[in-house]
């Protein structure tokens, strides 16, 4: 009986390992959920009603167990001197923009996760830690997150933030549309506290109708555009404003959903792990065949000698 050489043994073990890994990985990695419910919720932000009281910032911190401090300290308007982005301890911030038409009525714009209908972060997350739920919210799961920060790169609104200061178990953080409160039948914390109801919470379809109605009734007050209706395939948060949205800090984006291109490539390559398995098994087969040929050749050479 012919002895198994070291090389052939390793080859066969390698092939077997690749196959089993492919199968186990396929089972272990949970597919991210991306529910696009007809009845999904949204928020219509009417920037003409926002006065920049920042109570939403305070309420948001309280709802997420972040130290919010005294609400009186939020009256300080000097924070508006710089543009702010959501951070690890503030999932929403309000920015202020000057208004040439009336300098005494500046335009205040709340920034938070837009909760896209086709979220790029969900598609980018390799461990399925970010999921879109039936209420429209895009929520991250800290237990699954491995800290690859792909979602930060993918998000076109630059919303997810990473705890860079934390050495052990850093997390990705962002607005979760108060998913825990939604499950209890409560409104998102920011919506609940807003004294002017600049944030209107309701079914997204109805909010779009409401926004159209507002524009129709006050054509001088609003520009005829609902930001978020079509941006990157639609977002749960919608904005109305008196002027061009780029001038109030909202990025100009394509109507095509962001995951469209990346997903087709990524998912194409890794679909059910068939392509990688096929690739490695083909490589294995090739190696085995070439090895076999060499062995046969060697055997023949031995015969002649």
């Amino acid at each position, binding site marked *: 009986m012919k002895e198994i050489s070291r090389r052939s043994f390793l080859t066969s073990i390698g092939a077997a390992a690749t196959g089993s890994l492919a199968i186990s990985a396929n089972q272990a990695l949970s597919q991210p959920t991306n529910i696009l419910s007809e009845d999904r919720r949204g928020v219509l932000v009417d920037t003409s*009603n926002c*006065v*920049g*009281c920042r109570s939403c910032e305070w309420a948001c911190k309280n709802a997420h167990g972040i130290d919010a401090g005294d609400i009186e300290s939020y*009256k300080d*308007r000097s924070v508006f001197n710089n543009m702010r982005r959501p951070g690890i301890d503030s999932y929403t911030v309000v920015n202020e923009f000057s208004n040439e*038409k*009336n*300098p*005494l*009525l500046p335009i205040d714009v709340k920034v938070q996760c837009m909760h896209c209908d086709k979220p790029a972060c969900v598609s980018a997350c390799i461990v399925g830690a970010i999921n879109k739920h039936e209420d429209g919210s895009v929520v991250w799961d800290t237990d699954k997150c491995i800290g690859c920060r792909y979602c930060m790169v993918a998000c076109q609104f630059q919303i997810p933030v990473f705890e860079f200061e934390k050495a052990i178990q850093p997390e990705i953080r962002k607005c979760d549309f108060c998913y825990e409160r939604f499950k209890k039948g409560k*409104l998102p914390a920011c*919506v*609940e506290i*807003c*004294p*002017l*109801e600049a944030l*209107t*919470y*309701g079914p997204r379809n*109805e*909010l779009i109708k*409401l926004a159209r*109605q507002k524009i129709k009734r006050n054509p001088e007050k609003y520009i005829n555009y609902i930001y978020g209706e079509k941006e990157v395939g639609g977002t749960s948060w919608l904005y109305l404003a008196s002027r061009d949205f780029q001038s109030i800090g909202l990025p100009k984006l394509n109507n095509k959903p962001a995951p469209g291109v990346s997903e087709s490539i990524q998912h194409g390559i890794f679909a059910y792990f068939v392509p990688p398995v096929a690739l490695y098994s083909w490589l294995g087969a090739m190696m085995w065949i070439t090895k076999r040929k060499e062995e046969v050749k060697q055997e023949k050479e031995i015969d002649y000698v």
Partner: protein
Amino acid sequence: MKKFYLIVIILAIATVGLSSKWQDNKDAKPQKKSVSKAKTTKTGKEKSNQQKMMKKLYTNCKTCHTYEYPTKSDPALVNCPRSKMISVFHRPEEGPIIVKMNDIYGKYGPVIFSHRIHSEMSEMSGGCNGCHHYNTTGPVLKCKKCHAEERKREDLSKPDLNAAYHRQCINCHRQWNRNVNCDGCHKLKENDSEQKIAILVNAVSNAQHPEIPHPEKVVYETKYNKGKFVTFFHDEHNKIFGIQCIECHRDENCIRCHDINRLKKGNNISFQQKKIHKTIDEHHKPCVACHQKQSCDKCHKSNIMDRFNHTITAGWALKHYHQTISCNKCHGGKIGKVNRNCSSCHKKWELGNFNHSVTGIILNENHKEIDCESCHENKNYSVKPVCNSCHDDKNYPKDKPGRIKSIRVVSRK
């Protein structure tokens, strides 16, 4: 035989058709009757009372219903918003002095709103409708009649009560204060004892509208090349011509007058700080009502105009009572040259009934008796009187034929 059957069939169809038609008529008749019955039941006292009531409210059925006989199941109401139906024609005095707002449970106590002061000034900024929008005829509706107290609700078309209140107030108040602090209107509940509320209610009820600072003159730099500057003397128009604030300042932003920063600075105010975007017609609107027939160069000058001075313009100084009376009193409707003889206006002033003290000089015993012409040559009273026809060593402004009376100048209203 076949023909006979055909006729029978046709006859049968015809009778069925007719009877069904008759049935229709029969059905229709009682309906009509019921309508007329409903109408007749309201005759007499009830109907006249209803009509009286409707007359009082300036309405008829069509104000609210699209047709005349609405039913309970089909009220055929006119579509909301009923902005055209707004009929809040009350005067500020009819409304309450204060309104205590205490509908929303929260950490704050009641807001005491000075309704009277706000309503008195509202005329200059949109009127009652500014707050009482979509009000139907009759009594003024409460906000919570339409605005839900709960934020989580089905109908999203209207803001909830909390938002409705804030939206009414905050746009003016944030411009005035330059902040959005809650304590401007709200008092924390924990600090609000019954006593403190009573003090607050009393203070707000008795509050008077603060004095509104207004400029003496405003210089507008216009784009009109032939005369760039328009100088507007605010106090003249207001005090001398007696033009009310509302006649020019209609539908304006409260902040035009209410500005906490301006008030602090006192009277040294620049009213040209803020540029207001208006069309040419809008700019001229307040002026043309009076200055309609005048040419552009009446107001548009190449340099800043001096204040109107009667001495310079007319060559006749206004003295004593003349300073206090309105222009029209002497000039009539049209401003122009006026006969300067006192008697042209003061027709009753003749020797015997003329009291010389109105001129400011009470004549002494010696001068009381002599003729007017002895001092006022040729009865020309606008020229200085002469003394040297009798006195060689006397000269008028230096020496006087009596004692000077101090004249109380009555301020204009």
